[in-house]
């Protein structure tokens, strides 16, 4: 595998499970007193982020460093993009410095694919517009598998919230579906995709209908920066109808898990006391993110034979 641009690049269930199995080895590394191996010594990983990010960028950089690779960070706000440099010129400039992998985040769907077509380095999609965020899909699948695995066949997952604007939802649906989960999308009609043709999901407009029967509730952030129009009357109304409040959480089965990719809007899509409750996997998702990204970088840069 040269690039990871979409969950589909992993080649379906077998490829996804292989990556999750590999992640186990890196979880062990991250728990060591010295959480570092020299596997990617001499490699350089660049994070090229055209959108804001806390956890994804830090997670990739931590992963690269724990594999012994060097990291470079490119953030738009302090770069020549401010002077009008194009994405192509930026990629060529970075590549000329001698690098092995680029992690790209961009507001345009397909940006990572374009970068991959321009460079000899490996490209990891760190989020492209509404399209995909494959490492988030992998880390959510990994986290879920640790609690409900080894098989996720028949595991009932509700993905709640701003599905339409969410690349996390798209990658999660791909990953969870490939692993055999039974997926229900929940949200107001205005926050569901224009067309659900080809989505292997059921849809519900009412969170209360699905609460009692799901094994996992995965909440998405209400992306205020992507909502141009008023797609729901108010944040207060959203929280009232689709937020996982403490009162709703009490109606979940005792072993139902709660996930959120972060950053959370506490009090909107998830109540603070739910986010901090024992059923919440939020911080575990972040911790597993480093190990998953180590597995991805290792697979792209370390595991193969000679590069031709």
């Amino acid at each position, binding site marked *: 595998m040269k690039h990871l641009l979409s969950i589909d690049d992993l080649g379906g269930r077998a490829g996804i499970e292989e990556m999750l199995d590999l992640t186990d*080895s890196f979880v062990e590394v991250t728990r*060591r007193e010295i959480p570092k*191996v*020299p*596997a990617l010594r001499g490699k350089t990983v660049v994070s090229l982020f055209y959108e804001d990010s806390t956890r994804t960028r830090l997670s990739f950089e931590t992963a690269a460093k724990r594999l012994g690779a060097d990291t470079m960070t490119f953030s738009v706000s302090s770069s020549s993009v401010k002077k009008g440099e194009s994405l192509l010129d930026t990629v060529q400039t970075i590549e000329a410095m001698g690098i092995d992998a680029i992690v790209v985040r961009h507001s345009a769907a397909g940006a990572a694919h374009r970068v991959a077509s321009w460079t000899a380095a490996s490209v990891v999609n760190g989020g492209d517009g509404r399209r995909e965020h494959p490492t988030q899909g992998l880390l959510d699948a990994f986290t879920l598998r640790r609690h409900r695995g080894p098989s996720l066949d028949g595991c009932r997952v509700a993905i709640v919230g701003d599905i339409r604007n969410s690349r996390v939802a798209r990658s999660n649906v791909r990953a969870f579906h490939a692993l055999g989960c039974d997926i229900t999308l929940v949200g107001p009609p205005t926050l569901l995709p224009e067309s659900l043709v080809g989505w292997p999901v059921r849809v519900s407009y009412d969170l209360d209908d699905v609460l009692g029967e799901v094994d996992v509730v995965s909440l998405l952030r209400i992306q205020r920066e992507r909502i141009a129009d008023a797609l729901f009357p108010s944040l207060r109304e959203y929280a009232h109808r689709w937020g996982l409040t403490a009162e709703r959480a009490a109606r979940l089965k005792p072993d139902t898990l709660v996930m959120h990719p972060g950053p959370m809007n506490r009090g909107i899509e998830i109540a603070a006391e739910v986010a901090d409750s024992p059923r919440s996997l939020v911080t575990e998702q972040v911790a597993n993110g480093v190990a998953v990204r180590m597995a991805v970088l290792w697979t792209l840069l*370390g595991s193969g034979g000679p590069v031709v």
Partner: protein
Amino acid sequence: MHAPDAPATTDAPIDSGGGRFVFRAGVFDAPTLRRALTRIAHEIVERNHGPDGVVLVGLYTRGVALAHRLAVSIESFEGVSVPTGALDVAFYRDDIGLRPVQPLGPTEVPDITDRTVVLVDDVLFTGRTVRSALGALLELGRPRAVQLAVLVDRGHRELPIRADYVGKNLPTKVAEDVQVRLSEVDGGDDGVEIWGPPETGGPRGEVVA
């Protein structure tokens, strides 16, 4: 992988470019393999003046199984349960990027600080796996000493490494493959065999006893 250093390490018969590998010689059957391991277990205890402070750390895949067998053996005659561990060396190999490398399982090693660690593997060949294992092990703590136990030493060392406990010194050619079968890993009966290309040529490797 039977001989982790060998270029071809898959199930027999092996296709190695020039043709399929053929059976050459049986080295161990199940009873002789058992006796060799029993002897090594006794040697480990004797050399270290008892089992206290010894930790057996197997290298994936078959070294892990061998380490467990040694622990069972030591417990049977000393009445002491020796701690065991499993070590994956993939991230410490010196041929990353030269050939496909994947971790074979998660490293699980008990506290090794001030203990005598006996690394356990099935076949000692170039010594590069053991070099990687030393790198991996020493990041987990500072053992008092590290020793090496192998079922078969097939020669052809490329690094200054030797084993402290050897089941059998086995002269081989570089092109040959030493196949180790362990029932708990591979199913069937235990055994060690030499397989090689149909045409033989080149000198046998030297083995220092």
